[in-house]
């Protein structure tokens, strides 16, 4: 049956237009139940025949109780398309989760297209609001189901809408609220997942203060959306993303485009219930209130948060924001700071998601088994405490749990949320690792059956067909070898170096041919593209590709024939590239060396075997290439990477040390860089608009400010006008001790931005530059096993060589940009997770062994200083006086970056060496932290 749906719509030009759409009402929509007695098509049926109760959900249930729905206890659900549409319009995040539920074959969620079905289509009546129409549509569909599946299953409408429930019962349907339904299941732990309706908020207040007089307005009311919009338009308010200071949760920044500067927001009440990542509207405070920012390590507040010991950050993005503030604090002593200060007046878009953490310890309430209110403390210190209600308090107190925020009323100090699930026991290494993964949004679930089905049959061996392909070069007789960290199982690069008759060298870089096994559009490819990168934690690795590919089929192990994608250069002994060839190949590696082994071979002058001489030849070429690169202005940066020795049985760390970089590492790195550059040139030439490249933006003046300040205070003059100048002045920065130069380099590295992937069509070619490597073009080609970007680049290169067709995805620039954004996000998260994992193990290590170590002062604060411990790669604050007490005997000399004890000669200056004591303390339960104190 055909029906026209007509509605009026306002066009962009402001004209009112009548739109007419056809709507075909069908008869052939199956009910999706195996219990169906009539002639419905069962091919897509999801509801089992023995389903006692089939649930029909109302929109409000989906919107508010999605955590409950995700619990496997809720099953046999009919999701109506009217509900789907409403959810999509109201909350896209919830819609995506619901969609995932509906497509998950493990769950019995059936989508019923009630709007397209003749018997359940409902036309809006005159005077009926769209909401009422939708409610009626839900009831009509429920009634149809009741008649259709009569006798086989009970149909239950679950709704929290009182009116809808009343009408449903009047119409003879069975309807219940979520809470009463969950109660009827007889599983009290599920009740924790139920979000309570806001009308009950009043009773939830009790956890904090029982006295009704305390029920006052703590935060000012958010302005209505219309007012915000007009305020933004008139530039009274400023819009931006709120970022909370990682080191001080009571300070936040809003990057505002309309002002062109960051607006500082001090204190929880000015932040006005905004979370980190929310898009907010900010009002500027009058200028005379702009001086609140101080450079003390912590701005004290009613709460007990404080600064923490962290791993030394490796780039500006990780570093605490407060760095910039030192300079302003210095100025503020004289004049009012020029940095605008504001307060949040409204929240445009919430960034609420789930948070990991634990409950604040509290005594068990008297009544047993009843509901208890508890405060949840997130692991992420930027998140305020969250109030939750639970019936399993005794069970949860010693657990890491996940909690979701539901609302934040202006009369409650803390937001209220609900429990989602338990991760495990606090302090347990597996639990804490899991927390790290969840916090960084890393998917560590095993690969699904569909993904594994895409793997080639095992055991895989080289087939004659592979060899027979015209584009595959047989390089099995070439002496190829690989050099990797010890114990590396995912070897994705191998090399060879042969001396040619004319005195030149043929150097080949062979990269695992992952795209021969991962085809575009397959579930395997989708999964890899989602994961984006492998994640390396201290004690485990989360693979991007399934294990058989990662460790066997693609891994270029020794003495087995493997498929590879090769870049082969002819080079003069002066390391000038004469020609470059790209080809798919078959190789047979003759040795899988570790860096240590390779270094030992090169150093051992007695060894004269061909492999060793290859290594030496390569090394001499690499040295020339490296020199040339440095001449061009590439920065030799340093980071404080640490390495653990792990006990093989308990997996506890036995020792920590700085990761040592050898010549062999640099040699491999040099050739990988060269291969990446060569490939970048090739793909960009063929696909100027859709190549995936990697760029590293130049740091701005402000970003280099902290480095310059430190340098001046120790009497060092750095020239930062270009990467070349910076590299040169870094080379000349030689202090009194050998570690000085490295320290300066570490500080410089920290001022850099992170390199990012991008699609060449999105930027102009002047922006392609890679600052750190001083290369005009760069991409990632050499690690396709552990990075998805490389997989894409492999496909581009194969298409450029006309080996395979370019997958259709490359014609969609928007999609390509999406992919590169996701890769950047995943890459960053993977790094954060690795760091968090190292931090976790550092904590475990020092828990058993309080240690003394040498440290260098990085920064002077008003009540202490920040030190860096080179041996363990960690940095953290050392307090000279108890917190909260400002001033005291110590006087800070900002200009010279010194802190001096009044009346004595004792003083500390920046970059000075001090002895400190490292110990794990637990000032708050469940939050052990490393404390540094002056020895």
């Amino acid at each position, binding site marked *: 049956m055909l029906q*026209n749906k007509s509605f009026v719509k306002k066009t962009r030009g402001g004209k009112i237009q009548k739109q*007419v759409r*056809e*709507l*075909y009402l069908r008869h052939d929509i199956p009910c999706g139940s195996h219990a169906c007695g009539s002639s419905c098509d069962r091919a897509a049926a999801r509801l089992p025949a023995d389903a006692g109760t089939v649930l029909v959900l109302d929109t409000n249930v989906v919107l508010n109780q999605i955590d409950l729905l995700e619990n496997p206890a809720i099953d046999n659900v009919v999701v109506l*398309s009217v509900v789907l549409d409403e959810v999509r319009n109201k909350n896209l995040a919830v819609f995506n989760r619901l969609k995932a539920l509906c497509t998950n074959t493990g769950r019995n969620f059936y989508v019923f297209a009630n709007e397209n079905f003749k018997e359940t289509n409902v036309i809006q009546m005159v005077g009926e609001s769209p909401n009422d129409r939708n409610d009626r549509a839900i009831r009509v569909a429920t009634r149809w189901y009741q008649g259709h599946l009569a006798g086989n299953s009970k149909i239950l409408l679950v709704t929290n809408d009182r009116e809808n429930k009343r009408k449903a019962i009047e119409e003879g349907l069975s309807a219940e609220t979520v809470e009463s339904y969950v109660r009827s299941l007889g599983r009290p732990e599920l009740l924790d997942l139920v979000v309570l309706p806001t009308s009950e908020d009043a009773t939830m207040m009790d956890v904090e203060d029982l006295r009704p007089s305390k029920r006052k307005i703590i935060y000012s009311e958010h302005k209505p959306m219309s007012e915000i919009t007009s305020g933004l338009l008139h530039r009274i308010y400023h819009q931006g993303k709120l970022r909370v200071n990682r080191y001080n949760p009571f300070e936040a920044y809003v990057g505002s485009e309309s002002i062109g500067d960051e607006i500082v927001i001090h204190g929880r009440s000015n932040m006005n219930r905004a979370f980190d990542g929310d898009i907010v509207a900010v009002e500027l405070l009058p200028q005379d209130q702009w001086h609140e920012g101080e450079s003390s390590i912590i701005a004290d507040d009613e709460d007990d948060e404080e600064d923490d010991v962290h791993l030394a950050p490796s780039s500006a993005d990780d570093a605490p924001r407060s760095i910039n503030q030192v300079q302003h604090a210095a100025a503020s002593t004289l004049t009012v700071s020029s940095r605008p200060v504001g307060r949040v007046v409204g929240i445009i878009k919430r960034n609420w998601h789930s948070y990991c953490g634990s409950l604040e310890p509290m005594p068990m309430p008297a009544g047993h088994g009843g509901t208890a209110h508890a405060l949840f403390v997130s692991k992420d210190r930027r998140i305020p405490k969250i109030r939750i209600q639970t019936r399993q308090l005794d069970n949860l107190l010693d657990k890491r749990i996940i909690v979701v925020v539901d609302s934040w009323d202006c009369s409650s100090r803390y937001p209220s949320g609900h429990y989602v699930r338990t991760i495990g026991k606090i302090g347990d290494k597996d639990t804490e690792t899991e927390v790290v993964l969840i916090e960084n949004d890393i998917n560590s679930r095993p690969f699904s059956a569909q993904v594994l089905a895409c793997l080639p049959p095992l055991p895989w061996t080289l087939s004659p067909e592979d060899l027979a392909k015209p584009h595959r070069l047989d390089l099995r007789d070439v002496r190829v070898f690989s050099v990797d960290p010890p114990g590396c199982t995912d070897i994705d690069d191998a090399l060879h170096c042969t001396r040619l008759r004319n005195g030149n060298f043929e150097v080949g870089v062979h990269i695992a041919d992952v795209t021969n096994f991962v085809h575009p559009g397959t579930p395997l490819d989708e999964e890899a593209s989602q994961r984006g990168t492998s994640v390396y934690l201290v004690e485990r690795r989360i693979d991007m590709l399934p294990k058989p590919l990662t460790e066997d089929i693609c891994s270029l192990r020794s003495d087995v024939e493997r498929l590879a994608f090769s870049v082969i250069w002819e080079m003069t002994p002066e390391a000038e590239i004469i020609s470059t060839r790209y080809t798919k190949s078959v190789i047979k590696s003759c040795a899988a060396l570790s860096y240590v082994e390779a270094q030992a071979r090169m150093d051992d002058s007695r060894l004269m075997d061909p492999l060793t001489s290859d290594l030496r030849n390569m090394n001499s070429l690499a040295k020339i290439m490296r020199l040339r690169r440095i001449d061009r202005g590439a920065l030799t940066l340093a980071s404080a990477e640490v390495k653990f020795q792990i006990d093989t049985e308990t997996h506890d760390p036995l020792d920590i040390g700085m990761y040592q970089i050898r010549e062999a590492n640099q040699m491999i790195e040099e050739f990988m860089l060269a291969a990446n550059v060569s490939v970048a040139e090739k793909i960009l030439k063929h696909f100027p608009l859709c190549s995936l490249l990697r760029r590293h933006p130049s740091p701005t003046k402000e970003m280099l400010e902290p480095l310059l300040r430190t340098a001046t205070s120790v009497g060092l003059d750095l020239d930062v006008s270009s990467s070349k100048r910076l590299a040169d002045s870094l080379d000349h920065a030689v202090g009194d001790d050998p570690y000085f130069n490295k320290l300066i380099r570490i500080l410089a590295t920290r001022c850099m931005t992170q390199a990012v992937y991008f699609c060449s069509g999105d930027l102009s070619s002047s922006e392609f530059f890679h600052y750190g490597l001083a290369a005009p073009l760069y991409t990632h080609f050499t690690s396709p096993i552990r990075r998805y970007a490389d997989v894409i680049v492999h496909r581009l290169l194969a298409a450029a060589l006309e080996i395979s067709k370019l997958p*259709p995805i490359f014609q969609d620039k928007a999609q390509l940009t999406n992919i590169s954004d996701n890769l950047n996000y995943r890459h960053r998260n993977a790094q954060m997770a690795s760091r968090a994992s190292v931090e976790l193990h550092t904590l475990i290590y020092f828990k058993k062994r309080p240690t003394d170590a040498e440290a260098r002062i990085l920064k002077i604060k008003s009540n202490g200083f920040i030190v860096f411990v080179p041996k363990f790669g960690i940095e953290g604050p050392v307090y000279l006086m108890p917190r909260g007490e400002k001033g005291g005997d110590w006087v800070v000399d900002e200009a010279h970056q010194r802190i001096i004890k009044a009346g004595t000669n004792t003083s500390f200056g920046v970059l000075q060496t001090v002895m400190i004591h490292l110990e794990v303390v637990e000032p708050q339960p469940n939050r052990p932290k490393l404390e540094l104190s002056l020895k």
Partner: protein
Amino acid sequence: MEHVDPLTGFRQDGRRVNEMRQIRGEIGVVAKADGSAQFEMGNTKVIAAVYGPREVQNKNQQINNQALVRCEYSMANFSTGDRKRKPKGDRRSTEISLVIRQTMEACILTHLMPRSQIDIYVQVLQADGGTRSACINAATLALADAGIPMRDLVTSCSAGYLCSTPLLDLNYSEDSAGGPDVTVGILAKTDKVTLLQMDAKLPMDIFENVMQLAIEGCKAIANYIREVLGENTKELEYRRGS
């Protein structure tokens, strides 16, 4: 906007991806013309009138060994929602006129009618995507009604590619989504393509699938048109009293 709901597999108007809109054809709607027809594809409604074969009006254009086929396509001012006054003979109409003329010329046995002229007028009464196809289908019916000798029935249908799926018979909202739109015209019995238009890039293998879908649509339309003509013939027979 999702043009195909991934969960239910339905398009926004409740069709599946390989379903056409409702089609309807009627013969003899303009009494004065030698042949006429109205053709509807969902909310797209066009009318076609055929005059001829008749004497060539402008002797300069006369062709000695075949008939001259002329076509004029226009859209009624009320055919779209916004009341825009479009000048007659704008580029789009000229282009579509040409397309229709060439398509129809390929199936008319023009050599049987030398030194004569056939005029095809098509007008869009209501536009909701796929006007080109609807015009060709209407013209076919009108030509048959006028009794003009033809090799075969030409029918046309469009198909597009949205949300990584080929879609048959795009309506206006799907058509304006920016995806590729392939219009195909075939000679139904001989399976020959007389019209193939696409103004977008599409990988070869996908293009073939989309085109195949459009051809299936053309065949379905041909079956329907044959039915309409059969009914019409029966009626004529009845009127002759035999």
